[in-house]
């Protein structure tokens, strides 16, 4: 008897939660009308970078009066495939994809191609299928900028690098750009390069470990700001002064750390601009206009001198 009541209660709770969740989305999703409907499939919303990208897209959709459907693939290629398939079923006019994995996304894009729905890629490339345009930061250039700034700050001596998730595009490209900057000179030497998987907690631990083996390190390049902030925590009072720290992404916390002198520089990406450019270019394609194959989103070096421009 009591078990049946419990079951009924659980079912009621689940239904209520679902209705609440759906209700919230409705409230956020509609607003414009205008006719056009765009789907945005994001790799993960577990990361402030992509949350900002979504906000940029939502703002642009609001401005242009189009309906934007957002799906979070939670870093799972199979979920992303389902998400995009759902967009196709809902007959959206264009699909913005921020792929979890450049290869796994290909069949999904081909399915959208077959349904004659234009596909645009954000932040990460797809290795196949027909993609109208790729909207992406120049990560190699950004890595190089970060490397040159770190070399300028340090002057000479040993430095270390915190790498991103092994095998991913941004980790590879930023690492490549950084390595180019290091190879172009001889005063600054890269003595340790270890992965911290783009995570702050690991950035902290790995920096502590690197310091054990290389206590005389003068600078650290972290391939994203989360790891850089972990390094700041590991270095304590030495962060930003005895040991220079350069990050990548330009998150709000990193900008504040630069302002307070705990970090020295970062390479700012503009995820909100990626999102808004995505929606704007999707609208151009829907209206029958042509767009370039690749739309680079500027990366900018942020230092203590210009950080105030980036902090709103």
């Amino acid at each position, binding site marked *: 008897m009591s078990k049946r009541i419990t079951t009924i209660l659980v079912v009621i709770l689940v239904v209520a939660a679902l209705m609440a969740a759906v209700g919230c989305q409705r409230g956020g999703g509609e607003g414009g009308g205008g006719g056009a409907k765009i789907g945005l499939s994001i790799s993960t919303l577990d*990361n*402030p970078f992509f*949350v900002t990208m979504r906000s940029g897209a939502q703002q642009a959709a609001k401005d242009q009066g189009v309906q934007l459907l957002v799906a979070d693939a939670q870093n799972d290629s199979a979920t992303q495939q389902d998400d995009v398939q759902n967009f196709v079923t809902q007959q959206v006019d264009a699909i913005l994809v921020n792929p979890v994995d450049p290869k796994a996304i290909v069949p999904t894009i081909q399915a959208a191609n077959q349904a004659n729905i234009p596909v645009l890629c954000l932040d990460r490339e797809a290795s196949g299928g027909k993609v109208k345009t790729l909207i992406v930061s120049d990560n190699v250039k950004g890595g190089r900028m970060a490397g040159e700034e770190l070399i300028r700050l340090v002057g000479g001596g040993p430095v270390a690098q915190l790498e991103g998730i092994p095998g991913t595009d941004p980790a590879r490209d930023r690492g490549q750009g950084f390595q180019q900057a290091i190879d172009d000179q001889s005063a600054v030497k890269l003595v340790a390069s270890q992965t911290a998987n783009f995570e702050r907690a690991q950035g*902290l631990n*790995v920096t502590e470990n690197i310091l*054990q*083996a290389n206590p005389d390190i003068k600078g650290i390049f972290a391939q994203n700001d989360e790891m850089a902030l972990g390094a700041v*925590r590991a270095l304590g009072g030495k962060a930003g002064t005895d040991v220079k720290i350069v990050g990548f992404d330009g998150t709000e916390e990193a900008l504040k750390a630069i302002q307070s002198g705990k970090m020295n520089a970062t390479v700012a990406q503009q995820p909100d601009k990626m999102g808004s450019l995505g929606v704007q270019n999707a609208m151009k394609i829907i209206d029958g206009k042509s767009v370039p194959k690749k739309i680079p989103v500027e990366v900018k070096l942020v230092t203590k001198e210009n950080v105030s421009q980036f902090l709103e």
Partner: protein
Amino acid sequence: MASVAERLRPRELLSRSGPLGGLILLCVVMTILSPYFLTFNNLFNVGTQIAVVAILALGQTFVIVSGGIDLSVGSVLGLAGIVFGWATAVANLPLPAALALGIGVGALAGLTNGLLITLANLPPFIATLAMLSAARGLALVISNGQPLSPIPAAIRALGSGDLFGFVPLPVVLMLVIWALTVGILRGTYAGRCMYAIGGNEEASRLSGINVSRQKLLIYTLSGLFAGIAGVLLTARLASASPQAGFTYELDAIAAVVIGGASLSGGVGSASGTLIGALILGVLRNGLNLLNVSAFWQQVVIGAVIALAVMTDTLRRRKG
């Protein structure tokens, strides 16, 4: 109960010390390979780094000993950290209230797991899998996907301060939680019930143990420990992140199992779990010191986990 050590025969002692032997062997190898490994500084460093996972794993030990599993601890850690961060950084609540709220949310999530398992009759794997998703989602909802700061200085000090000038506070907290776990497992009725339920649930029920009530307690304890770990990680990072603790449940389960516990229940100890966490920590630290390529690190860690559990199982079978 107090005479457990006396009753052990030499062979049993050997089988009990299996994980410890592995840890010592690993330390010897690292000492030979890297001159930086065996220093006071570095060893405390390893202790600090494993503290968060070790506290999660100690909570997980209650669950695994009783024959269950808790997949939600990483997400519950993240949720507790975010609730704590929200309470201090956004709502500006006084520190004790914020601490109670953060850790309390962890315990509440654990209690919910227990209710799903006992009242709604879900298997632990499913109930805690659901919580893994829900807790992470709630952390994202509360924080709107962004990290929350600033964290009060008193809490930041818990992450980076030390006792007597050399014992890092996270290590102190970890040892306190370890002692608490030893006390619960060995010295209380609830602890004995955990082993009994893990050994044979039906027999425990027939012999008069209120299994449902004990399970509620077990999962609440696991959630409570995850809450404490969440505050500690927030203290170490000086910021509450909704991604905090992502996939930590796997490290926690690995630590418990490397420490000699059995996933079929009835076997396991707090000290074994601590050693399991140390093995994982020493391995990661050593691979960093040696500047081993990121690709190979994952292979080595996988191999050591398999090897550690394999030798332990083989030794048991022989014994």
